[in-house]
């Protein structure tokens, strides 16, 4: 037995363990720093920097200083910068490879700070570029200013003029055609010839003359009858053409009025057109906010619930780091692998301080049996009377997760907020006070959110100033407005419905201004169009007169023919 044991080896083992312990003690801070940076960057999709990490053993805790999380959409800015993050660790669960942080304090939290270097990570930037949606098309606004009549008539083709000219040309061509046809039909000379021949037959004497005359008379009458039939057919066709041209002339004469109606409708603004203007003002902003909120919600998912699968009754979990898979068994006192029970956060905004708590941060809520909850509030901030933000992200039942968030902002001073940068209607809220309330629930990826905003003491501005703009005039009278938005659908495919009392306010306020502008425009348009169409319409009427004159000639020939029989 003595030969089997190397007692000096005990000393060697102690030295090796001591050296390993010392090595761990000196490198552990760096390891923690790098692990947080690597895991954080993978989670956010942009660089996460830790100034320093300091692990203490008695009592067990970790202190991180200057934690910077880059905004993946703006790599030269941080989403948030935390001056110091101190946490106390429960040492016993560490033996079970569980990180349980009882208390965490985040001090000097500053959102949206500038970075000295870009925090973009090429591998994530490339993936985002591939997934980037196509650029949104600009919203086309209706014409909001009634233009000058001369400009309108310079670029618009009047259908009435074109119609009159087309009518005139057609009637002229048809008149020529009928004149040619009339020349081919039996005329007054022919009738006179028949009359002469009839007189000769009637004046014949003697038995032979009478018998011969009777035969000749029958033949002549047949000739006259045939010519009369030709004339009757021609008269029928002519009458049909004349009726059609008469109807056409009526259309030509009413065409200028149709032109006036069309142009008034096209260039003037109807109050109904303002019915959805608030969607143009608030739609893009609301849509952008919803898109951003849901993108962050998706990024948070690994923190709320990890992927698990059941295999032979046990739970198989992909570890956050390392290789292989972890198989979990029933615990006597179940604890999550990672848990922060309580975080105190103190946010430093330009407007002042804003603080709150976050409870139960863990990707294993089903094991903890409690959801993540948070509550923040701030009062008497600069330009903001009060703000509260609270919510519950409940993934305790992993099959039916339900997350809800409530946000209320009171007395937010709005200054120069751009509502629309559209060239034809650049609207800003120069000043005003806003109250804002939002409630959002995402249950099993179904979104149901309601947002309400109430604006008071508002001062809308259209810059540059457009004095003839009806909306500009209407907005000048608006001092308060409410906006409601509803988001429904799934996280991947959602719809935003907007409504605002601004629509009805604009409609009402702009109604009178629009009416008077439209009446003035119609009057001017009528005069100008009448002047332009007078000539062509008169010419068209004249051409119809020429055409109608042919009817008299046909009538006279028929009458002469009938007298012969």
């Amino acid at each position, binding site marked *: 037995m003595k030969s089997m044991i190397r007692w000096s*080896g005990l000393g060697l083992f102690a030295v090796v363990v001591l050296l390993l312990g010392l090595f761990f003690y000196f490198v552990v801070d760096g390891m923690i720093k790098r692990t947080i940076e690597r895991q954080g960057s993978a989670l956010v999709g942009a660089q996460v920097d830790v100034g320093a990490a300091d692990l203490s053993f008695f009592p067990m805790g970790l202190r991180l200083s200057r934690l910077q999380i880059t905004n993946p959409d703006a790599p030269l800015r941080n989403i948030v910068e935390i001056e110091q993050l101190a946490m106390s660790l429960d040492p016993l669960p560490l033996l079970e490879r569980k990180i349980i942080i009882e208390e965490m304090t985040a001090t000097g939290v500053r959102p949206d700070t500038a970075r000295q270097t870009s925090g973009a990570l090429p591998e994530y930037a490339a993936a985002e570029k591939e997934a980037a949606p196509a650029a949104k098309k600009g919203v086309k606004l209706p014409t909001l200013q009634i233009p000058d009549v001369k400009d309108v008539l310079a670029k618009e083709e009047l259908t009435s003029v074109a119609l009159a000219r087309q009518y005139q040309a057609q009637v002229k061509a048809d008149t020529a055609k009928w004149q040619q046809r009339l020349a081919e039909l039996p005329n007054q000379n022919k009738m006179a010839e028949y009359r002469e021949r009839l007189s000769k037959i009637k004046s014949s004497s003697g038995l032979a003359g009478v018998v011969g005359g009777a035969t000749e008379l029958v033949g002549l009458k047949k000739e006259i009858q045939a010519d009369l039939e030709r004339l009757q057919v021609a008269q029928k066709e002519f009458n049909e053409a004349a009726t059609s041209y008469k109807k056409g002339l009526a259309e030509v004469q009413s065409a200028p009025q149709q032109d006036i109606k069309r142009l008034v409708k096209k260039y003037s603004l109807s109050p109904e057109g303002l019915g959805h203007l608030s969607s143009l003002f608030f739609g893009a902003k609301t849509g952008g906010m919803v898109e951003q909120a849901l993108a962050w919600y998706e990024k948070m998912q690994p923190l709320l619930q990890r992927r698990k699968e059941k295999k032979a*009754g046990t739970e198989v979990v992909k570890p956050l780091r390392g290789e292989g898979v972890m198989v979990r068994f029933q615990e006597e006192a179940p604890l999550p692998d990672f848990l922060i029970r309580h975080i105190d956060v103190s946010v430093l905004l330009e407007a002042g301080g804003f603080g709150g708590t976050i409870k139960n941060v863990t990707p294993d809520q089903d094991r903890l049996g409690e959801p993540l909850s948070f509550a923040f509030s701030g009062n008497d901030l600069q330009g903001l009377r009060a703000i509260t933000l609270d919510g519950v992200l409940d993934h305790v039942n992993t099959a039916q997760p339900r997350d809800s968030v409530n946000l209320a902002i009171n007395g937010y001073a709005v200054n120069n907020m751009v509502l629309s940068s559209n060239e034809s209607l650049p609207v800003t809220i120069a000043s005003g006070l806003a109250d804002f309330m939002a409630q959002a629930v995402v249950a099993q990826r179904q979104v149901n959110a309601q947002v309400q905003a109430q604006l008071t003491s508002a001062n809308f501005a259209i810059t540059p100033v457009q004095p003839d703009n009806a909306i500009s005039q209407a907005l000048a009278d608006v001092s308060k407005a409410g906006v409601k938005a509803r988001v429904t659908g799934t996280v991947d495919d959602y719809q935003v419905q907007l409504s605002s009392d601004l629509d009805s306010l604009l409609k009402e306020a702009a109604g009178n201004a629009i009416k008077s502008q439209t009446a003035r425009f119609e009057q001017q348009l009528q005069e100008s169009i009448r002047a332009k169409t007078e000539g062509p319409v008169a010419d068209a009427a004249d051409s119809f007169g020429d055409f109608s004159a042919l009817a008299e000639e046909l009538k006279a020939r028929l009458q002469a023919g009938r007298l012969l029989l």
Partner: protein
Amino acid sequence: MLRLIAKLLKVLNSDAQPGQISLGFCLAMVAGLTPLLSLHNLLVLFLVCVLRANLAAFLLGLLLFTGIAYLFDPLFSQLGLALLTAPPLHSLWAGLYNISLFRLENFNNSIVMGSLAVSLVLFFPLYLLTNLLIRKYREHVLRWVKKSRLMQFFMASKVYRYYQNVRGLGGAL
């Protein structure tokens, strides 16, 4: 590396007991095939230090088996998962899972379980086989090897000079 090979040659050709060399090699298999930073490897280190296991054989074996482990990790993971999810073993694993020491051992990781199971199963067969091979080597091969052209060439090489230096120092290992 050369120093290590020289040491191994020295050990093989010395009067060291084959059991010490085999033990060092087999303990190296356990430490090499399983993830290095596992709790059981502290026990392996303790055994290497306290038992008269040959350190040169252990270190060389550790290099060899760590390389092999990279190739076999997917198989170890499959085997480990099969063991951990086998219904007859469920109560055993569930019992161990509630003991902090075993949780720290990370036995419920599929690679740890698979590689540890393989190395423990192979431990005694490899021990016996290595013992046998060392004995056979010393009985039949050592004299022939020493006389072979290759060995002559080797004895003139840098590796052999290392071997001589080590021997000259009279290393107790």
